[in-house]
């Protein structure tokens, strides 16, 4: 079993297709692993064993009948609990949606199922994707498999932890300000935020519509590309979806050729606030890229310093409106309906009881920022900053093909360390936010462990819209040379989490 849960998705798919192993066996191995390590990790909010095994059996039958199947057929996946999957609860990590079972599938979910991927269950997250640690989940935090006392990142900490804990070889995340990339960085996994409009948001419960984007999470660059290809592409149900061909991402992930590529190092993302180990591993990785034939250029993006304040106006503004629908009238939690209270009173009582502190904070900030008399000073001004940031990127892309930076200023911090300091928490997304504001493609790849704490460090690659393939080129190049250096995947160094099947591989 150990070889199954430690395999990459690409390997598993090949073995399933060759009938060396069945999808049912693979799925069962992961369900067993989940049962063994969940008490320690808590990556899942809902495990859907029955439907997972049924789907696996269906895929096995297809393969048995000689039917053609996709490149990830029969491989299990963990789905962030912010995407609808009919028949399974979608809670978004919130009490207000505790028992809501959506009657429809997100486009991403539909494409996963159509690609014969096996959905194991729904992963934990910060409530409505607001957070960088998964501590804002109403259902308890997720623990980082590298150190169970530490956070696995957020909002998609459940997805990243499920990969690092070998509970799933693939996961889906969503990234509004770094919710795929930051968890990937702090768990030593791969996370990609596609170009805005590159993957469909239909069925993704919106945090901030103009920033949200679903994307692939995996342990290898190729796995991420294969998954990215399954979920990418135009969706007429999402008006902001781009009607253009999906860039050649799988090809890029297989090639890893970066010779002649111009790589810009963002000057602004270094110095004060950056952990020495993070800067060290980042600098090493840049050296490696240079050694592989890339041209390294220092690039300045002066307006990035305004990205964080602009983001924390735009996001809460959109969120305050997006989250208005949770009012107890049609679905979800209902509090205070004693037959006498008015609809308005029930709405207020439900929202009071159903939303956590961070959600309330952002709803209040957003409501304020959109108020008449304040709109121009806050929301309007933030949108102008957004334009400046887009212009910074455009200027940078005149000089370089991609930009790189550390994904996060620090490695994983301790659970509870920053819960009372929202601003310190927000700083985790300092480097990741500009991409969301500009709609760029962006990814985080593991580049080693920080010497001072032995925790994973991520390198962020940013490419222009619709140039997602460049991310995979850089990621694959790094992965190849680093894996060789390390003598195996970084994740083989994840501590033993217990469970019967945990003899060390590699």
């Amino acid at each position, binding site marked *: 079993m150990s070889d199954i849960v430690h395999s990459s998705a690409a390997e598993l798919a090949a073995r399933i297709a060759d009938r060396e192993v069945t999808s049912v066996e693979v799925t069962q191995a992961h369900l067993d692993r989940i049962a063994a390590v969940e008490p320690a990790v808590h990556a899942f909010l809902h495990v859907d064993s029955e439907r997972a095994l049924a789907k696996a059996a269906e895929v096995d039958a297809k393969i048995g009948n000689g039917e053609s199947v996709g490149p990830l057929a029969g491989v299990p996946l963990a789905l962030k609990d912010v995407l609808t999957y009919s028949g399974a609860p*979608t809670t978004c990590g919130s009490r207000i949606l505790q028992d809501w079972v*959506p009657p429809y599938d997100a486009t991403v979910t539909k494409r996963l199922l159509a690609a014969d991927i096996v959905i194991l269950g729904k992963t934990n997250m910060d409530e409505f994707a607001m957070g960088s640690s998964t501590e804002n989940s109403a259902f308890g935090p997720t623990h980082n498999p590298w150190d169970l006392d530490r956070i696995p990142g957020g909002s998609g900490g459940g997805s990243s932890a499920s990969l690092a804990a070998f509970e799933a070889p693939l996961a889906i995340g969503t990234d509004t300000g770094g919710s795929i990339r930051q968890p990937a960085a702090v768990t030593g996994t791969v996370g990609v935020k596609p170009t805005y409009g590159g993957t469909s948001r239909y069925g993704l419960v919106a945090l901030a519509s103009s920033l949200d984007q679903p994307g692939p999470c995996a342990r290898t660059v190729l796995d991420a590309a294969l998954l990215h290809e399954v979920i990418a592409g135009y969706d007429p149900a999402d*008006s*902001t979806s781009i009607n253009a061909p999906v860039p050649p991402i799988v090809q890029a992930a297989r090639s890893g050729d970066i010779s002649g590529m111009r790589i810009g190092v963002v000057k602004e993302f270094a110095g004060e606030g950056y952990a020495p180990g993070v800067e060290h591993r980042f600098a090493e990785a840049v050296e490696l890229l240079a050694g592989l034939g890339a041209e390294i250029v220092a690039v300045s993006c002066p307006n990035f310093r305004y990205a964080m304040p602009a983001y924390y106006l735009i996001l809460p503004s*959109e969120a305050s409106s997006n989250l208005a629908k949770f009012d107890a009238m*049609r679905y979800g939690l209902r509090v205070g309906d004693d037959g006498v209270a008015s609809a308005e009173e029930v*709405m207020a009582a439900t929202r009071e009881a159903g939303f956590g502190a961070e959600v309330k904070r952002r709803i209040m900030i957003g409501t304020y920022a*959109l108020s008449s008399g304040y709109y121009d000073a806050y929301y309007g001004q933030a949108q102008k900053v957004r334009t400046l940031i887009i212009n910074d990127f455009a200027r940078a892309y005149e000089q370089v093909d991609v930009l790189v930076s550390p994904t996060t200023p620090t490695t994983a911090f301790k659970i509870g360390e920053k819960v009372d300091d929202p601003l310190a928490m927000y700083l985790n997304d300092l480097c990741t936010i500009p991409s969301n504001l500009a709609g760029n493609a962006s990814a985080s790849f593991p580049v080693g462990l920080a010497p001072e704490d032995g925790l994973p460090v991520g390198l962020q690659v940013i490419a222009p819209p619709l140039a997602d393939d460049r991310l995979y080129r850089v990621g694959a190049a790094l992965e190849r040379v680093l894996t060789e250096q390390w003598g195996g995947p970084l994740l083989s160094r994840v501590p033993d989490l217990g469970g019967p099947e945990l003899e060390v591989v590699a």
Partner: protein
Amino acid sequence: MSVMDAVINYEDALAKYDPVLGLEVHVELNTRTKMFCGCINQFGGEPNTHTCPVCLGLPGSLPVVNEKAVESAIRIGLALNCRIAEWCRFARKNYFYPDVPKNYQISQYDEPIAYDGHVEVEVDGQTYQIEIERAHMEEDAGKSLHIGGATGRIQGAEYSAMDYNRAGTPLIEIVTKPIEGTGAKAPQVARAYVSMLRDLVKALDVSDARMEQGSLRCDANVSLRPIGQQAYGLRTETKNVNSLRSIERALTYEITRQAAILQTGERVHQETRHFHEENGTTSPGRSKEEAEDYRYFPEPDLVPVAPSREWVEQLRGTLPEPPAQRRKRLAAEWGFSELEMRDAVSAGAIDLIEATVAAGAPAQSARKWWMGELSRKANDSGVELESVGMTPAQVAQLQALVDDRTINDKLARQVIEHVLAGEGDPAEVVKNRGLAVVSDDGALSEAVDAAIAANPDVAEKIRSGKLQAAGALIGAVMKAMKGQADAGRVRELILEKLGA
């Protein structure tokens, strides 16, 4: 229900105050599907059957703009002589109400699809120019059903139920600039404007425009200012105005009510008011003293709408004849006098007459039925003429029966009664009810003989050449025949028998 307001005489009000109007008209489009989803766009239906994750606002669902609705919006804009935006966005209007599934309505705010237009309406031979501020696209809300109360309103109801069939219906809101200078004609100008809009959107075939079903709704704003003053007074917005007649009544009432307040030196409350069909009054609705902040911002789930100039020009080519031009043409074709035409327009009879003529009736006959008997019937039952219960084809058939002398005018009126009672087409009614005139000379001859015998002195007058006396005998025969006789033939028989 409503506290009795003080009002003053309309003429007195207008002697002192100058009304300024502002009209907001919502037109429900007749697109096959809703504004942002694939649900069928149809009036009625079992509650919550024309719904999907999108129009129910379920978490994760996203809107997609109905291109046909954009096309209709542009055509309406062009017909109102508006400029069409080269680029515009939707905006979210945020407010909590159970019939708004997302707790925001997708509308347009500072970037409407059409703006700066104008139209002309005519009242009593005078032309008024109405400036159009904007026409924008939005989605309708669901319907609240308040159950258990006496009035069907939220006050006193035991509970409320929601029907989201209407949620997401495409709407075009057409807003005028302040309409000044209409004086005492203000209510009539408002009515004429809405009537014109109704004709226009029907001619464009973009809406059913049925006021009684709410597919064309008017919010009537009015304020008064002392004659000679430039600054506007405080206005009220009257909702629930569901017919052309109600627009006129509601505004007339508001003018007299506001004048009474101003006369005592008090201020008019800026508020929303509800019109009451049954007694022609208005009563306060939601107070706007606490101005609601809708926190508009551009809808991030939708990309901007950027109609190409080619498309706009192509749509301009599809516009029907402008109503005023059409009226002139029809008046000439039909040989109507200016007065006849004006009456037909204000009765909303133009389309009906046109359809009746198309079905084969002479124009003056069509006018006679629609403006006469059928207008009376519509008025009696308080419905619009078009909803009176008789179709243009049926009116044409009725006239054909008169023309071929199957029935006479008096019988025709009886036939109308039966058609309105739902007994079928005029021809069926005539057949089933045996209403045809008796052209059997035998029966007529007997009746004439009897009438002559019963009125010897009248008969003598006719014999002596006083032919006008024949009327009395004709009347007697018609009475005996219960009206089912051709009066012309009766006259011929009488004169024949009396050798006159």
